[in-house]
């Protein structure tokens, strides 16, 4: 039997086992430390960027609003978020994952509740809700910073749908309309109601949709139904766009092509993002020499940080950063692939979709091949909530990576003839790690 065939057989075998036994069948091993490496590198690069452009952002705000931010304010805040994220990562890495997967439903309800709370406090114009342009997206917790309930909702949806869908896949009912698709559609619709309609956050809506679609893909949905689902999602998406006039504006400015007009806010941001990226050249202008960050490019420290990095580090730098993201995503795929429990697989798939959607949407809008969606770049943007939740999700995957099953490629393990030393390599001692 080929190696691949062996693997599939073992997975199918375990699937037929009772679910309650699944978590106990795989022995814990050393987790995948490369996740920490990539995540850490990205966070450090983000920190360096904030250190470089923080003073300029402070100056811009001081000059236009008369506020009094010191030069290191943003750097300190980002460092604090970094430490909090590492804490969240560590927490999720040591907290037994069964605790989280068992309470998926409760997490979802907490997510919905917090979104509803935000909506109500927003209607009542309480000061705890931070609203702009008629949509409330943040809780303003004063000294503790701000909290975005949409992130809680995303996390809750991820855990719950992973469990729910996992169960359905195990029961071979993933393609069933009534059992699977309609409940899924209901949950999605409810979540979208809060996120896209009430909070008017299309970007987060797309991210949520891509989480669910990724999970469906990994869950083994049939191609036909998958196409129908994707088609329906696209139609709903277009519907959301048509309802909101500012989104139509963004689409039209996007389709006007490479314009550098400075009249409306969206095209101004895209135009300056492209100028920032374009002036980078091969190696960029150097740290601290970014001019766009001094106030020309809006949202320089959160949404547009990719463009600023393009200006600072150039083409080679951006390729390196994209490479880091791809490496992290591939690591997630590898973990996902080697997990046996379908629910855990789906959690990994969800996190993959989350991270991937954010990266793709942000970078695409910065380089002008997709309209602006106001979505942050994970781990690099300034902003506590997003970083903490991504770190928490990655921490969960880090823990799950302890339970992956790997077939050994050693000749000895696959019963091949190992009398010749060819392909065996160096002697392996106990205690030495393998990778």
């Amino acid at each position, binding site marked *: 039997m080929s190696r*691949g065939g062996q*693997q*599939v057989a073992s997975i199918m075998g375990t699937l037929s086992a009772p679910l309650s036994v699944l978590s106990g069948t795989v022995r814990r091993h050393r987790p995948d430390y490369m996740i920490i490496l990539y995540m850490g590198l990205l966070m450090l690069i983000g920190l360096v960027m904030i250190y470089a452009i923080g003073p*300029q952002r402070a*100056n*811009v705000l001081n*000059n*236009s609003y008369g506020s009094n931010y010191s030069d290191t304010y943003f750097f300190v805040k980002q460092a604090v978020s970094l430490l909090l994220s590492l804490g969240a990562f560590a927490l999720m890495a040591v907290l037994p994952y069964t605790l989280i997967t068992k309470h998926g439903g409760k997490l979802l309800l907490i997510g919905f509740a917090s979104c509803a709370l935000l909506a109500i406090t927003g209607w009542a114009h309480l000061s705890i809700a931070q609203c702009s342009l008629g949509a409330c997206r943040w809780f303003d917790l004063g000294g503790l910073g701000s909290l975005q309930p949409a992130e809680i909702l995303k996390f809750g949806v991820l855990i719950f749908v992973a469990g729910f869908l996992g169960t359905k896949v195990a029961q071979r009912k993933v393609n069933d309309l009534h059992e699977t698709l309609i409940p899924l559609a209901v949950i999605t619709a409810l979540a979208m109601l809060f996120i896209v309609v009430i909070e008017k956050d299309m970007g987060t809506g797309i991210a949520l949709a891509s989480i669910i679609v*990724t999970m469906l*893909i*990994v869950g*083994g949905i049939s191609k036909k139904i998958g196409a129908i689902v994707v088609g329906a999602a696209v139609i709903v998406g277009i519907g959301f766009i048509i309802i909101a006039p500012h989104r139509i504006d963004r689409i039209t400015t996007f389709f006007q092509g490479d314009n*550098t007009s400075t009249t409306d806010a969206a095209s101004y941001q895209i135009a300056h993002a*492209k*100028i920032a*990226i*374009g*002036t*980078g*050249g*091969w190696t960029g*202008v150097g740290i601290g*020499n970014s*001019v*766009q960050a*001094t*106030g*020309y490019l809006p949202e320089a420290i959160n949404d547009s940080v990719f463009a600023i990095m*393009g200006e600072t580090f*150039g*083409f080679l730098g*951006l*390729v390196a950063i*994209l490479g880091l*993201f*791809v*490496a992290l*995503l*591939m690591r997630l*795929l*590898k973990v*996902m*692939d*080697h997990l046996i429990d379908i629910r855990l697989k789906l959690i990994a*798939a969800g996190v*993959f979709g989350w991270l*991937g959607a954010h990266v*793709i949407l942000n*970078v*695409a809008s910065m*380089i*002008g*091949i997709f309209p602006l969606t106001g979505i942050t770049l994970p781990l690099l943007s300034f902003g506590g909530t997003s970083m903490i939740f991504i770190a928490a999700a990655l921490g969960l995957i880090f823990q799950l990576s302890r339970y992956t099953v*790997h077939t050994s490629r050693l000749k000895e393990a696959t019963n091949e003839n190992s009398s010749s030393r060819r392909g065996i390599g160096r002697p392996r001692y106990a205690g030495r790690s393998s*990778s």
Partner: protein
Amino acid sequence: MNLELQKGSRSRILAGFIFVIVGIFIIRLFYLQIIQHNYYEGLATSEQVKSLTIYAKRGLIYGLEGSTPVPLVLNQTVYTVTADPYTVSDDTKIIDLLEQVAGGNVQPNLQGLLGNKESRYAVLAKGLTTVQAQKIKDASFSGIELQKTTQRVYPEGTLAAQTLGFVDYDGNGQYGIEGKLNSQLSGTNGLLKTVTDVSDVPLTIGDKNINKPAVDGKNVVLSIDRAVQSHVEQALVDGLKRNGGDHASAVVMDPTTGKVLAMANVPSFDPAHYSKVQDAADFNNPVVSAPYEPGSDMKTLTMATGIDKGVVTPTTTYNNLGYIDIDGIRVLNGVGLGHLGNITLQTAMNNSLNSGFITVAEKLGDGTNITLQARDTMYDYFYNKFKLGQVTGIEVSGELSGTIIPPTDPQGNAVRYSNMAFGQGLDVTMIQVASAFSSIVDGGLYHKPTVIAGTMDASGNYIPNQISTPTRSVSQSTADQVREMTHIARGTLFANIDRPGYEIGGKTGTSQTLINGNYDNNQTVGTYLGYGGDSSPKYVIMIQVSGKNKTLEGGRDAEPIFADISNWLINYLQLQPKG
């Protein structure tokens, strides 16, 4: 990196999806960053690099008071209030504040200007001081902006207006010193071309930034003495009131250096409000720019020519017939002057008898005719030695040269030169005559007249100029004799006016004006040209009064002004009486 993704599992689809999309990103990034790099750099430069002209400060003009510089023309920062009526909302509040703060400087019809909501630009008030502008800025109304400009300010009011000139709206000096020394006063503007941030704060990023500082204009110190100028201007005004003339001019010089202590004209104008002047002729400085027929003042120069050539002395006699015939033309002395018969040239000088000086001109020739040799001599002295008929090069704009017709010209015949002997038939300016006379007063040394005493550097140190080397017009003894002749001439007519113990001399002049080619006896210009001093001459004063259809005489109308200024100058210069 060993991914070990399962074959046939959906993860490979996902991985492939990611790689394809990131590949598209990288291609797009390559396009943006490498291929279109120059395009975006151009866009960035055009947006971020701002060119600011650093304006040079116009040089200040000082005068002297004794030997201390005093400021005559300074620069002041003033503000213009402009509005964008389209965005202005608090019309009445703005109008109230403006009228309260800067009432005199607002434009008329503010309501109308602000009410026209179609327009995007309206000037509401000009010439606000810094304090007033700060009040407007503090109120911070939307749509109101303050623009900074500099303008010239004159702490001494209208003093020496025509000598100073003014600066027009475009920053160019006009008339006077401002016009003539415009390039020295303007300096050179500098340039600041740098990468800036959104609020135009210059940044040190980038290596192509230019910071060329401005070169400020030089500060000049004029030789014009503030107190003398003021007294002279007042004396002219008083004089015109007495004699009823329309125009008066005066110039006061230091004969030993050629420095002009005062140069005044009435009527004058207010340089702070130059745009309100109706008649542009008021900007002119007749002392340098109005050539006229000098009349009897010239007799001193003719006498000097004769003595220097050795053909006459002050005691030379001749027969005064009351007229002389030249080439069939009868040239008369002045009406009713008398002294017929044999008289000395000194008497001719005292009583301003034309015949005496025509005689000098004849004696320069063959004794009876004004030969070509005589005319050549006269032309040589007048033009080359006394520098009449040429611009003196004094540092104010608008100087004219006047005309002396050379003997080679068909017009330069004996009749003309006979007229020139007593100061008609040639056009010269007051400054030329005064400078020529100063050379006689100073022992025959001609100093180029100048109105600049030195410069003031940026830290306020006064650096006097070098005194220019003089040229010799006549010999020392000639000059002394002619000077003594004027001293005696004044003594016979005006002895009691002067303070005792000082040597003061001078010559009257009454010249007819040419109207439509004919000499008109109904309009005469009165002049008095004289000097004064203690043990040596210290000042030369020349006065001119004239009026339309007025017959103004040197002795009656111009001399009192001379005496006024001369007596005052003795006190001011603290001259001690002789003996």
